[in-house]
């Protein structure tokens, strides 16, 4: 009996593909669903379909890359937003794709135990682990305004960055300083790349950033062992290459000069452009209109729900510019004379216009009739012999 079942087990295992034989399965996903997900991620990054398969292989490799996730001055919004991603869910990401070895919100262990584990990983996987920073780093007075395990956050970051294969700064706080760095910046909060001189930090700004921009970047790193194409501020181009204004669903209203002027006015209720309410879409680089938030479908993002974008991904906009200040339009400025919001739906037939239209018809008919009466009926064939070929 046991021999038979052993053979069966072996047979089953061989019959399965490499992907399914992976210890721990695929987080409840079937193989087809998982490949679909990876291909989807590849597509959102503008990669060929075959990259989806490569991603699936990388994500299910037996050696999961360890990830150390540090929190500085922040609200945990980035983690919260990541917790609400559904393809894949965070648990399938951290249990199957990566090995999340240190994360203050999600750790099972606590206190000295957690710190000890972090150090063990940093030594064991020196040069191999991924460091993720969430939150800004205070630097005033040696960084004492944010301490973890009796040590300033800035030291944690610098120490962990030493042996990191890649560093990702998630959220605006880590990417450019966030709200902590806004005037008067009492703790001299800085972005991760500002306290790590000379190290490349992939910035995923946003407050919170779209979780899929983070996941896509991680999967790209795991697959190709290099960061995706970055812009001059080290943001992945696939996510931050275009202005919100360029793909905004309300853009036609902007071009047509239809603007909401107050919350709840006619234009606002009609879904007109929010530029005049201070929308920072025209100066903000992010892919929000293309992928939305919360996996609930089209229109689920700030502008989609009727609130002007406040430019959370941009240092020049968010927290540093009043929410209702006009954006600096980077494409071209709208014309100064805007038509009224409640455009009339047609003027109807004016008596004059009707008279003219009738006159045209009458004149045409009259002229045709007169012309016909004047012209000779039958034409003598000999009249035009000279035309013959």
């Amino acid at each position, binding site marked *: 009996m046991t021999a038979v079942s052993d053979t069966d087990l072996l047979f089953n295992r061989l019959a399965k593909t490499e992907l399914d034989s992976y210890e721990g399965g695929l987080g409840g996903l079937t193989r087809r669903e998982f490949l679909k997900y990876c291909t989807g991620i590849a597509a959102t990054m503008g990669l060929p379909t075959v990259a989806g398969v490569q991603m699936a292989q990388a994500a299910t490799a037996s050696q999961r890359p360890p990830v150390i996730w540090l929190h500085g001055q922040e609200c945990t919004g980035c983690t919260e937003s990541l917790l609400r991603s559904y393809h894949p869910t965070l648990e399938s990401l951290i249990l199957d794709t990566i090995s999340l070895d240190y994360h203050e919100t999600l750790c099972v262990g606590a206190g000295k135990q957690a710190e000890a584990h972090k150090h063990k990983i940093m030594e064991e996987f020196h040069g191999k682990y991924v460091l993720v920073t969430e939150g800004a780093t205070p630097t005033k007075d040696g960084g004492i305004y944010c301490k973890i395990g009796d040590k300033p956050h800035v030291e944690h970051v610098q120490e962990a960055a030493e042996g990191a294969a890649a560093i990702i700064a998630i959220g605006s706080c880590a990417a450019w300083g966030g709200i902590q760095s806004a005037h008067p910046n009492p703790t001299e909060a800085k972005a991760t790349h500002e306290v790590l001189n000379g190290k490349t930090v992939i910035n995923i700004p946003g407050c919170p950033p779209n979780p899929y921009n983070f996941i896509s970047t991680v999967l790209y790193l795991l697959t190709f062992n290099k960061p995706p194409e970055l812009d001059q501020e080290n943001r992945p181009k696939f996510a931050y290459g275009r202005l919100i204004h360029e793909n905004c669903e309300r853009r036609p209203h902007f071009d*047509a000069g239809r603007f909401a002027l107050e919350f709840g006015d006619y234009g606002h209720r009609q879904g007109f452009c929010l530029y005049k309410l201070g929308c920072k879409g025209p100066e903000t680089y992010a892919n929000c209109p293309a992928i939305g938030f919360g996996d609930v479908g089209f229109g689920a993002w700030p502008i989609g729900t009727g609130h002007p974008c406040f430019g959370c991904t941009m240092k020049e906009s968010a927290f540093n510019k009043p929410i209702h200040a006009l954006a600096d339009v980077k494409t071209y400025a709208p014309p100064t*004379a805007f*038509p009224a919001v409640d*455009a*009339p*739906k*047609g*003027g*109807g*037939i*004016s008596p*004059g*216009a*009707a008279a*003219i*239209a009738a006159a*045209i018809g009458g004149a045409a008919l009259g002229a*045709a009739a007169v*012309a*016909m009466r*004047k*012209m*000779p*009926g*039958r*034409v003598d*064939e000999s*009249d*035009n012999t*000279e*035309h*013959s*070929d």
Partner: protein
Amino acid sequence: MAHASHSPLGGKLLTKPFLVLLIFALIGGFFIARRFIFGLGDVTHMSGGYPWGIWIAVDVIIGTALGCGGFAMALLVYIFNRGVYHPLMRPALLGGLFGYTLAGLAVVIDLGRYWQTYNLLLPWFAQPNSVMFEVALCVMAYIAVLWIEFSPAFLERFGLTAVRDKLKKYMFVFIALGVLLPTMHQSSLGSLLLVMGSQLSPLWYTIWLPLLFLVTALAMGYGVVILEATVVTNAFALPSEQRILGRLSPLVAWLLGGFLVLRFLDIAYRGHTGLMFAGDLNGFMFWLENLMFLGATVILGLRSTRTNQRLMFLASILLLLAGSLYRLDAYLVAYNPGNGWTYFPSVPELMVTIGVISLEILLYLVFIKKLPVLHGVRPVQSH
């Protein structure tokens, strides 16, 4: 084939019709100036629901179809090598020249941001998948081609026969383009409506729109040639072109017959026959245009029409009215964007269209009097 000789008609320029047309053109010009100073809303009744008014529907969509005389004749004379029709070529080209040039002018007047028109010509802004882009480029190119095709008339007038003879060597290129470009954009004027979906009545909306527009453009092109030849030869007491026109008529009858058969079969196949008898405005317009098409088809098909100038004239009028109405219906009457939008042109808007058409006829008169366009004119007498 015998080469047709052309000569200017001569005669006084400042005639009564000229002055009447000039007054209408000036009124149109006044409102065009207002449009550029005070904006579109000052002059037109166009709206968000009807961004295309009569300037597009009449001046462009109908205007270019009426300008298809050059296209239709070029197809016949050069592609099917029917040299017998050659005497009709130059006047037809002249009609096309004004039809298209002024349609281009109408588009610029109609465009909200006309100052950006040049962007169409910048390849890095091109959107090659857009029908509108194709129409815009094709029409622009065709206007240029028409001027080149017509240029021998200028060159002869100013005695530059050497240049004309040189140009003649390469004329085949422009003649080929002169057939290709209208084939492309006249069918695309139908394709433009394909995106309207249910906003256009199913009596007009069909996947065959591009073909139906192309066929009507060709038929209207021949219609214009017939009308213009009949009117001009009578008005200026020139030798009749009836014999050539008579040969042309069965061809047009076949074209129109094919159009009608396709149209009715298609509506029946799609199951919208009931809409013809709905008793509403759309149904009425549908029958009006098709009965006129049918009338033109029958008259042109009659053997006795070939020698009867009056019947020929009547048929061409019916054909042009039917073709124009078909286009007006498809672009405005049967088009309903919903949400309570309505449209009827305003007085200034109508005056602009009348002004543009008046200018077209006025320039035609000037050109045939001053340039060698018409065929069979007796030597100009000194006066």
